[in-house]
């Protein structure tokens, strides 16, 4: 008998309200979803539809007013502050549209930082950071400061940092928003390859072409998931003619 694996991320009837009583504004929910290891999931929707709120709940940056958020089967509302902090250091990585890196640290120092904060010895942290930079194709630029990296390279460093050490759940808010479309696409390709290694990516984007790299695209409207498209099996090798 096989034991079912808990989803990497689950929201169960999760809502986030701001304010109380009749004046309360519902930013999100109720939303239920499960995201499993190795999945790349994109969240789309108009401004104010609850995308960033969902990401904040998923990353334990905010708590739901109702319902539950579980990471690897652990109900976040039952964790102590110390346990939550540890989860954010060891499981979850974040990437935003920009300003991801500390300007005073080199690429490798930026990537090693979460490990050092987690008590990892300097040399070991640097070694693992270099390994992660190699995976994103930036080993040769490890000693550069963010100012001397292109926008696409900075996002690659941010992705390396988000996945360094044991971290395996990446939450990204418009990670391609500040990039041109070809560079944005290379970032999506990198995220996709990370998922092929068993890592999990949840990404908020308004760009349909980038969202299309995802296995699943969730569409939010007024705080609720109103649609979900799942990538079908691959197209035949030769594309058919348009009607």
């Amino acid at each position: 008998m096989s034991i079912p694996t808990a989803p990497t991320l689950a929201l169960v009837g999760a809502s986030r309200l701001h304010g109380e009583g009749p004046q309360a504004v519902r930013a999100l929910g109720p939303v239920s979803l499960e995201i499993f290891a190795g999945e790349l999931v994109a969240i789309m929707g108009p401004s104010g539809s609850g995308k960033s709120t969902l990401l904040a709940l998923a990353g334990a940056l905010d708590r739901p007013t109702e319902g539950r958020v579980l990471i690897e089967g652990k109900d976040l509302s039952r964790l102590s502050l110390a346990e939550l902090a540890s989860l954010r250091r060891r499981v979850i990585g974040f990437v935003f549209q920009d300003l991801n890196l500390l300007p005073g640290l080199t690429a490798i120092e930026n990537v090693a930082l979460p490990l050092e904060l987690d008590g990892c010895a300097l040399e070991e942290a640097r070694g693992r950071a270099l390994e992660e930079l190699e995976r994103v194709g930036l080993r040769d630029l490890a000693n550069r400061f963010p100012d001397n990296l292109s926008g696409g390279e900075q996002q690659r460093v941010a992705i390396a940092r988000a996945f360094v050490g044991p971290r395996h759940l990446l939450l990204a808010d418009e990670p391609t928003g500040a990039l041109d479309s070809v560079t944005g696409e290379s970032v999506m390709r990198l995220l996709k390859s990370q998922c092929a290694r068993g890592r999990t990516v949840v990404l908020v984007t308004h760009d349909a072409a980038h969202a299309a790299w995802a296995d699943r695209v969730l569409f939010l409207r007024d705080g609720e998931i109103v649609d979900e498209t799942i990538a079908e099996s691959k197209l035949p090798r030769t594309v058919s003619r348009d009607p």
Partner: protein
Amino acid sequence: MIIRNSFLAILSSQPAHGYSLKSSFEASTGGAWRLNAGQVYSTLSRLERDGLIQAADDDIPERRPWQLTDEGQAALSTWYETPVDNRSTRDELVIKVLVAVAAGERDMERVLQTQRSATMRRLQELTRSKMEMPDSELPELLLLDARILRAEAEVRWLDQCEQRLRPTWQGAAS
């Protein structure tokens, strides 16, 4: 006209027989457009009639390849110099949405979302194909880029429709 001009373009690099024109055309369009023999030969006979191609000198008359004439070369240059007019006024989706709005369809949200879902799924499929395609397959890659960008434009247009129509359907609901 596209087939006719494409044949002129292919013949501008070297003389060719009907069958190899067909194969070259299909290869250069990434397999997106297949021709039948009838189309190939009727196109060639019209090109010959108009003096744009002629049979090249060869030993065996019935196996002579086609080559461009000076007039054919000039026609090709004109084609390259003329921008394509892609302003379609009869895009089925656009017309469908316009007609639905004009008819006062109450559930525009569903109409738009159904299309959005389908286009998004198509975009995912196209992207899947692109993920697997080596950079060396240039015609296929360029073709996929074109289809991806068109699908993306459609999603963006649907998003804009929703944004513009939203105030009207919220008003209707209250």
